[in-house]
């Protein structure tokens, strides 16, 4: 009798213990609808569809299947979910469009996302990147100005506007932006390189050389900076130093065009 009682108690204890473990391993079931109202049920179905399409779209983007992602996010956008999902869907669709080579569509979607959420920093960043990449400098500058206005401490905003300003010849703005970037992150070599380009275009070779030397202290294999330093040294008449710079550039450059230029200049000295 006692043996039976012990066996039953052990069985109950085992079931309780395994039941607890199971509860931790399985997700909760979806809550049953608590309404029979047709419009509420339709809204729930739409929400579920948005959820599924989002998951499949992000998974497609993560594996680089941009066509599949484009179809999923276009579907989400057509369902017009509330914020922040509406602007996020437009951002993701823009990402797919850009990778499919349709930058005009991507720009329109990012502008729409920013219209819905004016402080959507990732959308502002990607808008500047696309405009920079396709060489639309006035649009890149306008987008970067708007980005910086609500994210003044963002180094990505500062870097992007500095590049747009430098490429467009606005040396004063570019200088301010790259100096601010260096102030925020003094160890970022590319900011010193870009500031050197600003100074070179302003005819201030000494200031440019100091920035290039700083960039190379931070990143000795920085081939573009080494090449630019070589040109400054050559103009300054320091041919032996320039030759060493071009030689090191030819060694470090991953870009074959830069390597060819460095070899050509080295061999002339």
């Amino acid at each position, binding site marked *: 009798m006692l043996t039976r009682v012990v066996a039953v108690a052990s069985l109950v204890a085992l079931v309780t213990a395994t039941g607890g473990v199971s509860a931790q391993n399985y997700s909760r079931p979806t809550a049953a609808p608590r309404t029979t109202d047709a419009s509420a049920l339709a809204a729930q179905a739409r929400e579920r569809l948005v*959820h599924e399409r*989002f*998951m499949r779209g*992000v998974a497609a*983007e*993560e594996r680089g299947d941009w066509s599949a*992602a484009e179809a999923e996010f276009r579907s989400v956008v057509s369902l017009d979910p509330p914020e*922040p*999902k509406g602007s*996020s869907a437009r951002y*993701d669709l823009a*990402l797919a469009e*850009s990778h499919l080579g349709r930058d005009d569509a991507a720009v329109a979607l990012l502008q729409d996302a920013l219209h819905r959420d004016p402080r*959507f*920093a*990732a959308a*502002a*960043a*990607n808008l500047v*990147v696309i405009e*920079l*990449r396709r060489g639309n400098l006035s649009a890149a500058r306008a987008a970067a100005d708007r980005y910086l206005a609500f*994210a003044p*401490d*963002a*180094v*990505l*905003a500062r*870097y*992007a506007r500095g*590049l747009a300003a*430098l*490429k467009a010849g606005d040396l004063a703005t570019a200088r301010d932006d790259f100096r601010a*970037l260096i102030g*925020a*992150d003094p*160890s*970022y*070599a*590319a*900011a010193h*390189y*870009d500031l050197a*380009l600003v100074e*070179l*275009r302003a005819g201030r070779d000494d200031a440019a050389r100091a920035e290039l030397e700083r960039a190379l202290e931070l*990143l000795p294999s*920085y081939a*573009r*900076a080494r*090449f*630019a330093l070589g*040109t400054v040294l*050559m*103009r300054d008449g320091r041919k032996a130093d320039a030759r060493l710079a071009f030689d090191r550039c030819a060694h470090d450059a991953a870009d074959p065009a830069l390597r*060819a*230029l460095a070899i*050509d*200049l080295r061999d*002339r000295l």
Partner: protein
Amino acid sequence: MRGIVRLAMAGALALGACAGAAVGAELLLNDPASLVTSSPPALLGPITETGRTGWNCAPERAATAKTAAAAGLPHD
């Protein structure tokens, strides 16, 4: 015959590339504006359905980061 033509074409292309490099080198020495800037930033990645609810959103964090590494800025 085809081999000779191919060889001649390869030679012409090589000469063209050398001439291009020489012209480019002159330009770079005399005109600092021809030096290219550092690379543009890369596009930030996808955002999930709930990504922007709270702080666990990598693209938003990169877009507002205060250091080059956290923002994913290019190295060169």
